[in-house]
């Protein structure tokens, strides 16, 4: 039986906690945000696992405490807490991070959204050894899966979390059998791309891009019904400032000026991109979600 220190946030963190316990291992403690709506905190309380606030990781005595309580593995799941090197070195076997993206190509924040924005057709999850660099440690396990045309930021994030749980199972099985069997594959630094907090195109749609690029940006921002880390992309159409919540390609060629409204039908509005019409179904106008046709009732130029 392993003793795991879990540093986690979000639903993936709560799932990891339950997964570790169901595999028969002990969770020494959970380090997570001190918020009532935190699913990790809820899961830990339900299981009787000690909950520590994230500030504990910065305490000078924390690394020694990790050693003293006999932690075998430190597992970081979707937490942005920065851990000092001595904390990462404290567990008996090592410290691991579950990253919702393939490495080294999608290091940093919001990897699922960036993948959709870039039009990727595959994505992945990575479980890697942690060192002082962000998302740069040796890879232990990774999974790849397809990105479908209807995937959104939310659905792709959920695929990452599901795949991540399988990687966690593999780590727990290997570590409990023979820790030396956990792989260590160095990342190629020349292929590293790091994504920070910035939102592409400063959060604004550019209708002079292709329909595919426009729709991919909308999908990347879509975490409905949950808040999006990027918000929905903003645009000014027909003199109205709005955010596009949902859109799809029509594959119908278009020669109209980009950003002009072609027609409105069935609640949707067709808006010209560089090459094709884009069928916009839902927008947010003044902070209120509405059918695009209701927000843009008549075909006028942008």
């Amino acid at each position, binding site marked *: 039986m392993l003793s795991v220190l879990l540093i986690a946030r*979000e*639903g*993936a963190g*709560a*799932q990891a906690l*339950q997964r570790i316990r169901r595999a028969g291992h002990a969770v020494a403690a959970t380090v997570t945000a001190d*918020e*009532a*709506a*935190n*699913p*990790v*905190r*809820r*899961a830990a309380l*339900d299981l009787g696992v000690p909950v520590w606030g994230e500030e504990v990781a910065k305490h000078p005595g924390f690394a020694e405490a990790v050693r003293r309580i006999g932690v075998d593995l430190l597992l970081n799941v979707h937490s942005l807490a920065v851990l000092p090197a001595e904390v990462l070195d404290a567990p008996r076997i090592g410290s691991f991070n579950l990253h919702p993206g393939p490495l080294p190509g999608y290091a940093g924040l919001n990897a699922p959204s960036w993948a959709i924005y870039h039009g990727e057709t595959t994505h992945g999850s990575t479980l890697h050894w942690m060192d002082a660099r962000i998302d740069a440690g040796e890879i232990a396990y990774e999974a790849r899966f397809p990105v479908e045309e209807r995937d959104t930021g*939310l659905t792709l*994030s*959920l695929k990452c*979390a599901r795949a991540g749980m399988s990687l966690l199972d593999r780590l727990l099985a290997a570590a409990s059998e023979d820790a030396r069997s956990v792989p260590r594959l160095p990342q190629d630094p020349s292929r590293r791309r790091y994504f920070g907090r910035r939102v592409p195109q400063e959060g604004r749609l550019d209708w002079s891009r292709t329909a595919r690029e426009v729709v991919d940006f909308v999908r990347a921002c879509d*975490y*409905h*019904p*949950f808040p999006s880390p990027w918000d929905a992309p903003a645009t000014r159409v027909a003199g109205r400032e709005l955010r596009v919540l*949902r859109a799809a390609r029509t594959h119908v060629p278009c020669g109209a000026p980009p950003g002009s409204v072609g027609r409105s039908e069935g609640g949707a509005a067709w808006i010209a991109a560089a090459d094709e019409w884009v069928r916009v179904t839902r927008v947010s106008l003044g902070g209120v979600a509405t059918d695009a046709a209701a927000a843009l009732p008549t075909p006028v130029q942008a």
Partner: protein
Amino acid sequence: MQTANSLQDLITAIFSEELYVEVPSPATDLLQGGYLDSLRMVELLLRLEERFGISINLESMELEHFRSVERIALLVERERQAA
């Protein structure tokens, strides 16, 4: 005919037995209390669809539909009547 209370009981049981979440009461705020996150919501939807023979479109859902077991029961009843 299934009463509202029995539907709430069934949904509470789904939380407990299949999502491993103990919800204190049908009125408990599932979102504010951390009982329901994006992962669990999608799993809940799958189980509601399987259990009650309904088809729930994520695109038409709002968070408020999942605020409590009471509201989820109302959603299920509405979808059953629409089916």
